């Protein structure tokens, strides 16, 4: 064998090592080739499928949100285009978060720190878009022009909600409580609602009709098949899988003009008497439709539509009167004398009294089975002498109704209250409704006693102590009386409309229950309610030239802790309806006003209702009295 190293000048070659090297190389090639075989031949189908899936995706097409109109077809919630600046984390991070966001902030005049906070708070995919802020059209154009310096920053046109008043101005405070607002969906909500097609940051209704009719307003999102690029961005639409179904447009039962009248009347009354919290509601007793719902102070939901600032939100939270709450349905108060409707009806229905039977009245009513001297006062400390139900109702005798309450017992009283809708939600399709409290044995048991005290029961008869109602419940109760005994479900939405606000589908009124009392008995109370107005107990409201026989009830409800001069503060109530003749059941209008801690001689709520009716019927008269100065009746009740 020839010397393998023949001709070599120095180091010998090692055949063994060459062979070893060569074998390693061969193994290497086998390994790679084998892996190729595995991927491409053995598992080829799997990867082919994944490859197909990787570059197409189904992305949703948002549906336009339904509009909201008032009763007459005025648009009160509309969609307008808004420009949102968004950031894609993958691109922004690569170029430097502070740099890019800093540049952006100085360009559009925003606070870089706030934007960075929002950016950092995002926890989704780095190829999604993080909304940073909304900008004007000019700012949006600027950002577009300078896009080279702002990698990862895009401007998207998103629809935004605008809320309008009765004149079409951008002022949501008129109907804020009724309509509510929309805000971006939270992560917890998204976890529950993603299956229904909600996307991160989708608007979702909060409060009001926006919330309770969220499904109708949102519509159904569509879907389209798109081709994506390496970064997951859609580059081409391949097919529309499903067209979006636009949200339904809704018509409120509220008439914005009427609402304005209610708000103005209430504002006047609250200012004149220094009251900080009040409600005025107007309803059609025949259908339960709410024609106006004013809760003051109110808030401007437009502030929420664009994303409320922390300062504004704090201001709303700390303002006395709690503007964010809808006092009409969410808060409960003692109804005072207005509750005598329940006591009277319950007494008639259970046979405790008849329309004509007379009862003695006292300055102070001795509580049965209680030690001598424990008595409950009438507002008139001398009593009125013997009265029948109609008279007692008109003059609002407390001791009469103490007796009615005690005689019929807590269960019958509770039953009468329930028939009139107290103690439970009215069923109005709005969020946040309170149920209120009606005295019952059960309540006593929950508070550690076998029974209600007799004194408590007596006080319940005049709407004090263990009775708390919402203004809506009270209005609905009197509406039930006014329409002949049908407890209606209050309506806030009248139906669905076309895009121009024409009603195309009306929702039907719903009867929730009927009063057990006979028509005759009910009529007695209706006549009594008329007497309230005509007897002078409601001051000069009887002098209004109204197209009907205004009937109703005043109420003064004590609450809270005694003041320095040993008296309790009180609320002021007035509820009324307008039948064509006394006792008739054809009233189409019912009004209630509630004013919180209206500690003035006059009945503020009465004055407010008076003012409202003057406006509503466009009367020439102005019979308002200064609530601070009442000479007609002392010790107002």
């Amino acid at each position, binding site marked *: 064998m020839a010397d393998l190293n023949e001709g070599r000048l120095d180091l010998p070659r090692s055949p063994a090592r060459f062979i070893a*090297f*060569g074998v390693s190389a061969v193994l290497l090639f086998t390994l790679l080739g084998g892996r190729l075989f595995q991927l491409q*031949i053995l598992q080829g189908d799997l*990867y082919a499928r*994944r490859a*197909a899936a990787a570059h197409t995706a189904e992305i949703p097409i948002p549906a336009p949100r339904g509009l909201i109109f008032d009763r007459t077809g005025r648009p009160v919630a509309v969609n307008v285009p808004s420009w949102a600046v968004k950031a894609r984390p993958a691109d922004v991070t690569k170029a430097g978060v502070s740099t890019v966001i800093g540049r952006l902030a100085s360009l559009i005049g925003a606070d870089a720190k706030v934007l960075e906070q929002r950016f950092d708070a995002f926890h989704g995919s*780095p190829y999604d878009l993080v909304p940073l802020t909304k900008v004007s059209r000019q700012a949006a154009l600027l950002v577009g022009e300078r896009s080279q310096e702002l990698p990862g920053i895009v401007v998207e046109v998103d629809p935004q909600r605008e809320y309008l008043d009765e004149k079409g101005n951008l002022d949501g405070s008129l109907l804020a409580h009724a309509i509510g607002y929309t805000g971006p969906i939270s992560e917890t909500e998204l976890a529950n609602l993603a299956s229904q097609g909600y996307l991160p940051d989708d608007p979702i209704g909060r409060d009001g009709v926006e919330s309770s009719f969220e499904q109708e307003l949102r519509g159904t999102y569509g879907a389209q098949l798109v081709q994506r690029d390496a970064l*997951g961005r859609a580059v081409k639409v391949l097919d529309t899988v499903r067209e979006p179904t636009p949200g339904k447009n809704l018509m409120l039962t509220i008439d914005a003009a009427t609402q304005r009248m209610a708000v103005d009347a209430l504002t006047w009354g609250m200012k004149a008497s220094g009251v900080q919290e009040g409600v005025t509601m107007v309803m059609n007793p025949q259908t339960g439709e709410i024609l106006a719902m004013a809760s003051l102070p109110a808030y401007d939901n437009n502030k929420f539509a664009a994303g409320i600032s922390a300062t504004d939100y704090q201001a709303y939270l700390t303002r006395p009167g709690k503007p964010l709450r809808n006092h009409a349905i969410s808060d409960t108060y003692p109804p005072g004398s207005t509750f005598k409707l329940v006591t009277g009806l319950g007494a008639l229905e259970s046979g405790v009294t008849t329309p004509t039977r007379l009862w003695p009245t006292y300055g102070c009513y001795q509580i049965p089975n209680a030690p001598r001297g424990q008595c409950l006062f009438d507002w008139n400390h001398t009593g009125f002498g013997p009265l029948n139900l109609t008279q007692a109702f008109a003059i609002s005798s407390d001791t009469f109704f103490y007796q009615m309450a005690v005689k019929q017992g807590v269960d019958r009283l509770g039953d009468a209250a329930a028939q009139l809708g107290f103690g439970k939600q009215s069923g109005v399709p709005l969020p946040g409704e309170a149920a209120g409290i009606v005295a019952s044995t059960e309540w006593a048991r929950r508070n550690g006693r076998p029974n209600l005290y007799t004194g408590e029961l007596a006080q319940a008869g005049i709407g004090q102590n263990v009775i708390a109602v919402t203004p809506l419940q009270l209005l609905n109760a009197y509406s039930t009386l006014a329409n002949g005994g049908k407890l209606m479900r209050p309506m806030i939405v009248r139906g669905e409309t076309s895009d121009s606000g024409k009603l195309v589908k009306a929702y039907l009124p719903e009867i929730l229950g009927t009063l057990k009392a006979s028509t005759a008995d009910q009529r007695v109370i209706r006549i009594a309610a008329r007497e309230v107005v005509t007897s002078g107990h409601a001051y000069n409201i009887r002098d209004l030239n109204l197209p009907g026989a205004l009937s109703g009830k005043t109420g003064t409800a004590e609450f809270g802790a005694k003041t320095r001069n040993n008296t309790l503060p009180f609320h002021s109530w007035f509820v009324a309806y307008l039948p064509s003749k006394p006792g008739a059941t054809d009233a189409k209008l019912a009004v209630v006003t509630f004013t919180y801690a209206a500690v003035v001689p006059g009945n503020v709520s009465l004055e407010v209702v008076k003012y409202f009716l003057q406006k509503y019927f466009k009367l020439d008269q102005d019979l308002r009295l200064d609530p601070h100065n009442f000479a007609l009746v002392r010790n107002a009740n």
Partner: protein
Amino acid sequence: MGAISSTFSQNVRAHKWRVFDWQLLLYVVLLVGFGVAMGYSASLGAGGSSASGMSQTVKTVIWTGIGLTIFFVAASVDYHWLTTFTVPIYVAVLGLLAITTVIGTSLFGAQMSVTVAGLDFQFSEVCKVLMVVVLASFLTGRREKVGRLSTIVGAGVLMAIPTFMVYRQPDLGTALVFVAILVGMLFMSGASIGWMAVMAGGVVAVAPLAVQSLAIYQQQRLFCFLDPSVDPQHTCYQLIQSLNAVGSGGWFGEGLTAGGLNRSGLLPVQSTDFIFSVVAEELGFIGGLIVLALFGLLVWRVLVIGWGARDALGTMVSVGLASMILFQLLVNVGMVVGIMPVTGIPLPFVTYGGSSMISLLFGMGILESVRMHSRKPTF
């Protein structure tokens, strides 16, 4: 002695071009051709128009032209000039890497190239080939002492400095290529296997530390191949898309420029490091095998030249280049098919990149020089 050598060298001079290894050049050119075609297809897929695809092709052709010129120049010169210039070459290597560290621009987060007049120079590419030369020179200079530990240590130290500089760029992949070159050349030089094993053990012990000191995203990229679902959106995205592309190629692929994933631009960096995934997607299993076969044939020719070299210097250079090409092939294709960690190592001759092309062609030229200046005229 003098007469024989002068006759020898006369004969050699006259006949050297007869022994020029045409196969080597052929396989190189074929691989470059693949690279051009795939690069064109890939740049189309990355959202480029046919114009930009053409411009990349044109650039590649120009770089190749320059490279081939260097190739022929290096081939015609007797390669022994390398021993004369070993020290300056080493100094140049350190200098180039230093420049890169100081003023290099970032390509995808690694400081790897220096841009001059709009052209990217990746000095680490040419440094690989230069270090082959330096190391070859060193090892042959050891003569009989090559079996000693001091050889291994010396070679290690020599290599360690540029390796470390490259690693700090940070370019882990290329640093590993340096190590592969060192290992291959030490092995073939006749160094002590026992000592090499000890060294290897030491390296394995140190490896976790080295990995820790990488940036997080680099660490994540390394481990994607074990479980791509670690971060499917982000760092492992390339690998997942690559596997999908490769697998969907089937036997014959989807056709040149017709690869689904390629066309939808879903493969980031496909015109550079992941180019093999385009080959696999568009030319299928058969296409992939052909490319592997070309590499196999290329490495075979390199080793044949090494075996037939007249002196250890020639053998060392050939072995060094073979190690380099094999290692890069293993890691690049391995990465594309998901059996190697994701690193930024180019596929020789195929990946688009002027520096890599020219460096490799320079190396191939030296090899031809080894062949032409080694053989006895009678072979």
